């Protein structure tokens, strides 16, 4: 279980007048095997929040813990999927997917076997020897997903993973992510700026407000799983999406 209590994050020093309050009093929990999506306008600190849970940046006040162990850095039970893929341009698909296993000291044989299994799972069989630059954006993010899954994390932290992809690719990857998730039911925190994506994927949507980033509401998504591709037409889906839009629009007009 991921537990976040009274989390506050400042960049710079506020008392010196030069800082920015990125997150203020964030309180929420993500249960085991739960898929939580996080949405909010830009500047609401959603990516900052994810990086704190990933242990990539420190925080000043509050508590962030995983199974009651405070987060002090990255850990083997967590893996991150990045918005810009963050693939190593000098090594091929296989080398990228084995990265996490290699740095954790797995033997070459084990890591390659595991990596090949995951490359197959994300549908990139036959592309093992390709360099990232030879792949489309969608394929690159499949590599990013396979690399994260290769280290067998219990928690998957996804930072707008499909944000840089075109609409068709994004839809395909969303469907595939849902299928993957049905098999393993990992705990997922998924940052997005797409309302459809937030509702389609999540068990709950966390709605955030900007400047400073705060949790406005946790919304249950009462859509049953496994979710079919035409889930978007269901009245419940449309209703939640409309509700999100009302809220997000109010935040935007408030700003401008």
């Amino acid at each position, binding site marked *: 279980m991921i537990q976040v209590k009274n989390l506050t994050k400042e960049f710079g020093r506020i008392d010196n007048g030069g800082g920015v309050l990125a997150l203020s009093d964030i309180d929420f929990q993500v249960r085991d095997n739960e898929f939580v999506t996080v949405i909010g306008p830009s500047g609401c600190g959603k990516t900052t929040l994810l990086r704190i849970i990933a242990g990539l940046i420190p925080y000043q006040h509050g508590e962030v813990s995983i199974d009651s162990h405070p987060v002090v850095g990255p850990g083997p039970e967590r893996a991150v999927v990045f918005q810009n893929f963050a693939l*190593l341009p*000098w090594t091929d698909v296989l080398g990228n997917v084995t990265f996490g296993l290699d740095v*954790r000291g797995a033997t070459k044989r084990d890591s390659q076997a595991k990596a090949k299994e995951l490359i197959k799972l994300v549908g990139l069989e036959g592309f093992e020897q390709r360099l990232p630059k030879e792949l489309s954006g969608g394929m690159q993010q499949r590599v990013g997903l396979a690399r994260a899954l290769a280290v067998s994390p219990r928690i998957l932290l996804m930072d707008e993973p499909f944000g840089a992809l075109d609409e068709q690719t994004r839809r395909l990857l969303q469907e595939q992510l849902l299928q993957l998730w049905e098999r393993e039911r990992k705990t997922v925190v998924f940052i997005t700026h797409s309302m459809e994506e937030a509702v389609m994927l999540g068990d709950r949507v966390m709605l955030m407000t900007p400047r400073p980033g705060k949790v406005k509401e946790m919304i249950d998504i009462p859509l049953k799983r496994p979710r079919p591709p035409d889930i978007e037409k269901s009245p419940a889906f449309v209703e939640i999406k409309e509700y999100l839009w009302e809220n997000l629009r109010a935040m935007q007009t408030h700003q401008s």
Partner: protein
Amino acid sequence: MKSMTASEAVIKTTAAKNIGSSFASHWLLRHWALEIFALFAGAVIWESLGWGLGLQWLPPFSQVIVALFHFVVSGVILSNLQSSLMSLIVGFALSLIFGLVLGALMGRYRIVEKAFDVYVHALFVCPSILFAPIFFAIFGLSDASRVAIIFVYSTFVIVINTATAIRTVDPSLVEMAYSFGCRERQIFTRILLPASLPLVFAGIRLGMGRAVKGMINGEMLIAFVGLGALAQKYGAQFDAARVFAIAMVVLIIGLVGNAIVQTLEHRLTRWAD
């Protein structure tokens, strides 16, 4: 009329075939035709200017080649080349080690950068030959003076390039590596080194060129051995043909050094093409 056209056509096709096959068999010509032509044209112009103007400082190209030939046959070049190359290799190797290590530390750690930046840039901008008398005072007429001059000539451009290369590595790759639990040493070996290699090699190539310059300048001004001393000697005698012949040897050293670095670079950074 008709038969003439026919025979002409036959001649043309055979000619075309001959040219085609000779081109095909001459890989050099096919890939380097323009370069070879430029060199050839340069030699012709040099030769005619040399004869036409009759200037003492511009001997015809053929005389330079003759002088070079005599140098090679008499063994003068070989013995001097050996001594020059030894100091070049030692000096460049030291500047590589120093340049890569200090550059990497400066690129990675702000505190190291702040401490050394002003010195590195000052020494880079300052004409390295200014240090010749100082090295002479320290090391005397030994090879160490030459090595030291080559070192200061080439190392700082390597430091600066390496530092920039490490500093500009995509931070998202470093963050990714952290997220998988990489420690600082792994960040270096698995992310920073491979990612910075293309830019590091650009620095190494510049450093190689400067090392060759340092070798000759050092030999002309302090050590009085090797190719530089030879050039100094014939320069004092106003023997332009021999000076040009030595210049050509230096040019070849530079080109070979560059080719070695480029081959290595191509092998290691093919992904960046």
